[in-house]
């Protein structure tokens, strides 16, 4: 096996295969929680943790999982880690749990977590899988924060809960409809930048 290039893994996770803007995975949660920067950020942190742990676990037992039942196995591993995260947080960090408790359980259904387990962790060794989970989570976090900035500023005239403008320029932006607008516009802009300056082909694919 060739030497693993961790730089490439990180670049892929954050730019080349950014979960939201390039792979277009997990758009439901990306719309649901990005009405504010803070919500997006907290959700991102939880996703980084869960993705790292799931990729690590799947990679460790990848030879034990029977290929015919790999999806149920992955789902169970994901559900286990999400539940563990939820339980530990609810007991030991009540303050953070009050902010994030709403989102933790949602992570079970994230397409991006399952897809990285299937695409990467099931075929790679332990440390590259951990790096991939972390990088993908980070890419997701950055995407959520970016959409969050866009929506919170336009929808509420504030950032991270601090008011910047006196008015609410576009209330629709914090409603789910506005989430799709924001995501579409940002995705289009990033594709344009990619084509114009890096000679890329833009994003493809799509799932919820």
């Amino acid at each position, binding site marked *: 096996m060739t030497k693993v290039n961790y730089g490439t893994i990180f670049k892929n996770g954050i730019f080349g295969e950014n979960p939201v803007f390039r792979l277009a995975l997990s758009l439901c949660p990306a719309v*649901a*929680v*990005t*009405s*504010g920067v803070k*919500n997006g950020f907290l959700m991102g942190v939880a996703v980084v943790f869960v993705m790292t742990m799931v990729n690590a676990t799947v990679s460790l*037992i990848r030879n*034990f*999982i*029977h290929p*015919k*039942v790999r999806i*149920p*196995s992955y789902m*169970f*591993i994901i*559900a*286990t880690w999400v*539940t*563990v995260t939820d*339980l*530990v947080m*609810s*007991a*030991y960090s*009540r303050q953070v749990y009050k902010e994030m408790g*709403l*989102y933790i359980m949602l992570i079970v259904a994230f397409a991006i977590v399952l897809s990285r387990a299937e695409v990467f962790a099931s075929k790679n060794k332990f440390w590259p899988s951990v790096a991939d989970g972390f990088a993908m989570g980070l890419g997701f976090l950055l995407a959520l924060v970016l959409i969050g900035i866009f929506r*919170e500023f336009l929808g509420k005239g504030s950032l991270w809960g601090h008011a910047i403008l006196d008015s609410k320029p576009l*209330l629709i932006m*914090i*409603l789910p409809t506005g989430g799709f607008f924001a995501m579409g516009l940002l995705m289009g802009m990033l594709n344009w930048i990619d084509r114009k300056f890096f000679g890329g082909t833009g994003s493809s694919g799509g799932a919820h």
Partner: protein
Amino acid sequence: MKEILRITISLVVIFIAAGVIMGMVYKTTSPVKFQAEKKEKEEALKEMAPEATEPITKAGDWSNHGKNYEYFRATSSGKAIAYIASTAGKGYSSYIKMLISLDTDMRVKGIKILGHGETPGLGDQIEEAPFLDQFKGKTFTQIILIKGETKENIQAISGATISSRAVTNGVRDGVQLLAEKYGSGVKPAVSEVRK
């Protein structure tokens, strides 16, 4: 036949391992969580009636939406100064649990949202001061949700009408209960504008 056996074993082992891990984590975290919740509840109660000198005592149980809630009596040198009830309202995607406290005139002293699962960014604005402060000093007949500007009643949060209504209904239920139990003569008109 051999393959199906291997599939079964693979799944069963993973499921049992996951079950054991979750069970162990639950066993270690649940007492800690229970203690933390109990302490938070005491602190929340204290916050609802900070001027009470004696510990706030439970006065009874009541039920709303088929769930059980409690009500409390806060006293200062033997005299009642505030009545507190835990209550809830059915919101957009969850029950919004809260504590309300009334002064002896049956006016709302304060509201504290204990927990909810409303939409982040929209419904969760019910926790913020601009909305909750509207209830202060209001009596039962004034606690009515209005869409649009109002000083006399409660103004709904735009984009979160259902969550606002849930809080308003929860407060109304709590006020009604406390007024029935403690309000001397100032019984509110029970049946109006409930639904």
